């Protein structure tokens, strides 16, 4: 009798086994994600509190170094991407508008898209892929070679010494780079308008300035500031938490790019919704 009950029980459990296992795995993933997010937010809070020490000579030097890496060293790739983003937008929109004889309005379409969305979005993706991954790789290498432990033993808080300068640099530089991306994107659109669609640069610019509002610019800049904070937080957290040698550094770098991209998309959508609906 017992045998029968046991086999029935086992049969039931095997039917439930797969969903249960999947549920358990999902729960574990959610717990790990929440734990990681909590750690990252604590790190962000701690680094934010240390911003008051930014005027110390050593911190100032580190911030300037990070501003240089984030800003000047990213200008090349940002320039190319910005110009081509504007050109593609102008070409796609212009071809559609031409069907209705309204191609002179590409200026407004490109300007509004670039300033509201594409400028901060493209800048965020480029900086996440170039600067974010570099930060994760650098801090990750420091973690596996015990340099972070050495700082802790010397009572030098890594959140002040390493995270704060990167956070300040990214939060300052992202809006500046976004303005630069916006300008080049609009110029790129203008080039396509003038050379491919027969819209003079003057008409293009008139339309661009007429329909783009200050609000678009400010929301775009706010987004870029938030993206900068997201990239710095994700990259520093992934870097500092790195373990397991070179494999771990590779994992941290990849995870930084993926997580930053996801947050940029989701938070970007939420900010747009907040200000425009």
């Amino acid at each position, binding site marked *: 009798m017992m045998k029968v009950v046991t086999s029935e029980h086992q049969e039931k459990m095997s039917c439930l086994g797969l969903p249960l296992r999947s549920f358990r795995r999902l729960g574990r993933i959610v717990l790990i994600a929440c734990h990681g997010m909590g750690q990252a937010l604590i790190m962000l809070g701690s680094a934010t509190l240390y911003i008051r020490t930014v005027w110390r000579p050593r911190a100032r030097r580190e911030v300037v170094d990070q501003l240089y890496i984030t800003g000047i060293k990213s200008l090349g790739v940002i320039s190319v991407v910005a110009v081509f983003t504007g050109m593609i937008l102008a070409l796609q929109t212009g071809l559609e508008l031409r069907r209705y004889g309204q191609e002179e309005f590409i200026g407004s379409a490109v300007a509004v898209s670039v300033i509201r969305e594409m400028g901060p979005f493209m800048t965020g993706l480029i900086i996440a892929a170039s600067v974010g991954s570099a930060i994760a790789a650098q801090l990750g290498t420091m973690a596996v070679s*015990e*340099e972070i432990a050495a700082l*802790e*033993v010397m009572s030098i808080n890594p959140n002040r010494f390493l995270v704060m300068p990167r956070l300040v640099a990214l939060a300052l530089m992202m809006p500046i780079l976004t303005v630069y991306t916006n300008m080049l994107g609009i110029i790129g659109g203008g080039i396509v308008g003038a050379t491919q669609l027969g819209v003079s640069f003057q008409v293009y610019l008139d339309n661009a300035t007429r329909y783009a509002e200050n609000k678009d610019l400010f929301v775009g800049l706010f987004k870029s500031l938030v993206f900068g904070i997201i990239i710095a937080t994700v990259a520093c957290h992934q870097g500092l938490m790195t373990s397991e040698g070179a494999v771990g550094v590779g994992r941290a770098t990849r995870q930084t790019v993926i997580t930053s991209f996801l947050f940029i998309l989701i938070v970007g959508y939420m900010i747009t919704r907040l200000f425009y609906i």
Partner: protein
Amino acid sequence: MIAFENVTKRLGGKLILDDVSFEVPKGETFVIVGLSGAGKSVTLKHMIHLLVPDSGVVRIGDDVISRARGLELERMRSRFGVLFQGAALLQWLSVFENVALPLREHTKMSEEKIQKTVLKKLNMLNMQEAVDKYPSDLSGGMQKRVGLARAIVMNPEIVLYDEPTSGLDPVTSRLIDGLIDNLRNELGITSVVVTHDLHSALSIGARIMMIDGGKIVENATPHDFIESKNETVKRFLESQYITRRGNWEKGMESHV
């Protein structure tokens, strides 16, 4: 000076330290030996609160470092200097800046005084020539000497050495052993050395403790250690061709 009281630690579900208790007397060089993965570095990390025990207590003098937090932990850590296995120098700072870092972060010394102090420590370790170089320009042995200069620049009471001779050629290894011995003799520093190099352990240690499988299998003076009846210790000695006292005594004479 340093006391472990019934310390147990699990990492990734594996028992690394199993109810470990020992004491490191003040001013002594205490060596911890064992095979890779035996729990030597884990023991060392407990001394500076890079790891905390699951149960048990780690004391530094009257302070319980294993339960310390915040400023109290900073104060206790200021009693230590640590030479990490790979030296752990910050790669974007020069040799001078690396050694000067603790002084710049924790003292109000003038730049002139910092320069004087750093050069003095680098001189002690015969590294004054490398002052403007970067860690990537230095050999493994030179990096360790710079790491040692950084560890002692704040004049700590205790210096911890994690595998100070690993990855170094025998000549440089004996040179590092000599430096550790000199620091103890000249500055009266309490030293804890983690190594699997028995030649080094027998040369510099006042006491040698062997850990195996998370437990202490021997804790003795060098003389008693090589005459230990413990099978694990015997195998460990034999694996490094140390069967007679003469082997290590010669080694010690060569660098003193």
